[in-house]
């Protein structure tokens, strides 16, 4: 079956895409929603514009759509284009626990007559973290939005040490960040033919709200073309 992957650039949607490909599904295109507002309930926000470079690294086409107030309408339009242009019959998403997010993806797919797959659904959050690292994913933390996650994490690559620390905070946060406690950006995963290298980035952090972002200013592709 030919699929479109709803792709935020973070670890969860990247993992879901890998699961689909491994099971023999033909992921023909990525669909990436780029929120115009920072408080999007539906989409992962920081650095969403760089998903085009991740798509290039994987050798996949991408449909990027700006999202204003009507997030569901924008999603429908993007999926309609994926179905029309690439002949996809379904979508695969990285939804793990959010019924708000999952229900909207399900409804959009249903309206367009597309299958909807959420292979990480209800997966243990620690298992998500472990699986990404075991598969050799390289990713950084691009946003934090919960105590006690601090400024020091912004831009940091997630390695086993960071993962253990996040898992140890499960009393305070969802260890995989599914509740928006933190966001990630993938620089490399097994389906990437090339790696991304961040050349320049800025941190913004508020000690009052325990929220911050790592904004990627310049990133390049490295490795064989």
């Amino acid at each position, binding site marked *: *079956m030919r699929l479109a992957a709803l792709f935020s650039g973070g670890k969860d949607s990247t993992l879901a895409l890998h*699961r*689909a490909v491994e*099971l*023999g*599904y033909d992921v023909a295109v990525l669909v990436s929603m780029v929120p115009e507002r920072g408080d999007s309930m539906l989409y992962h926000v920081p650095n969403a514009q760089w998903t085009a470079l991740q798509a290039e690294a994987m050798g996949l086409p991408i449909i990027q759509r700006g999202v204003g107030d009507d997030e569901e309408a924008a999603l429908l339009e993007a999926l309609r284009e994926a179905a029309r242009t690439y002949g996809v019959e*379904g979508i*695969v998403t990285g939804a793990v626990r959010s*019924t708000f997010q999952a*229900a909207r993806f*399900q*409804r959009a*797919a*249903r309206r367009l*007559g*597309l*299958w*909807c*797959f*959420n*292979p*990480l*659904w*209800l*997966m*243990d959050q620690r298992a998500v973290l472990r699986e990404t690292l075991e598969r050799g994913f390289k990713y950084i933390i691009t946003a934090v939005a919960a105590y006690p996650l601090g400024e020091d994490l912004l831009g940091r690559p997630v390695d086993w040490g960071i993962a253990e620390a996040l898992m140890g905070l499960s009393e305070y946060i969802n260890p995989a960040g599914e509740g928006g406690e933190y966001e990630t950006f993938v620089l490399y995963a097994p389906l990437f033919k090339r790696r991304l290298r961040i050349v320049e980035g800025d941190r913004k952090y508020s000690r009052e709200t325990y929220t911050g972002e790592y904004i990627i200013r310049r990133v390049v592709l490295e490795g064989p073309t």
Partner: protein
Amino acid sequence: MTGGHVTIIAMPVQRLHMDEFVRPLVDIVARLGLAPRVIHYAEGLRDVEPPIVLSGTGIMDYAYLERLEAFEPLRDLEPILGICAGAQVLALLRGGALTDGELIGTFDVEVRRTNPLLPGGRARAYFLVTKLVVPRGDVEPLAYVGENVAAFMAGDGTYGVMFHPEVYNEDIIVRFLDLSKGRL
């Protein structure tokens, strides 16, 4: 609750749906110290043993409705719990019917009949369903979402829930397995 086997009948026709609709049930059963045995309905259900949980499947997947004969071996087996697509099959086996109707997302479920599986009052539940149960034959409604049947029983040990209890109502699965203790 430790040691016994629980049969989980997988309903998805697509492999990519197995992790979404079957794996969460396997995880719950395993967390309870029980041994999940997963079998897909297309493999043949002649030798399955209760207690049995029939999973749900994706919205575009209606293959099970074209293979109803595969579920005939379940006709007299109890205890058995059907979830969404699984509940649709149980309703059809017990004389009920289906009607088109879409419920996608989180809705309030109201329990209107005292029963051993569902606590009284209201609870939120996650639905992913486009075919609803019409109570006929042995199908007796226990709970409603609006005026639609959200849960039913059909015999002492046959239950169907149109929502996905693995999302917000794991206690229902735990209670079902607890009610099945004599079979574990």
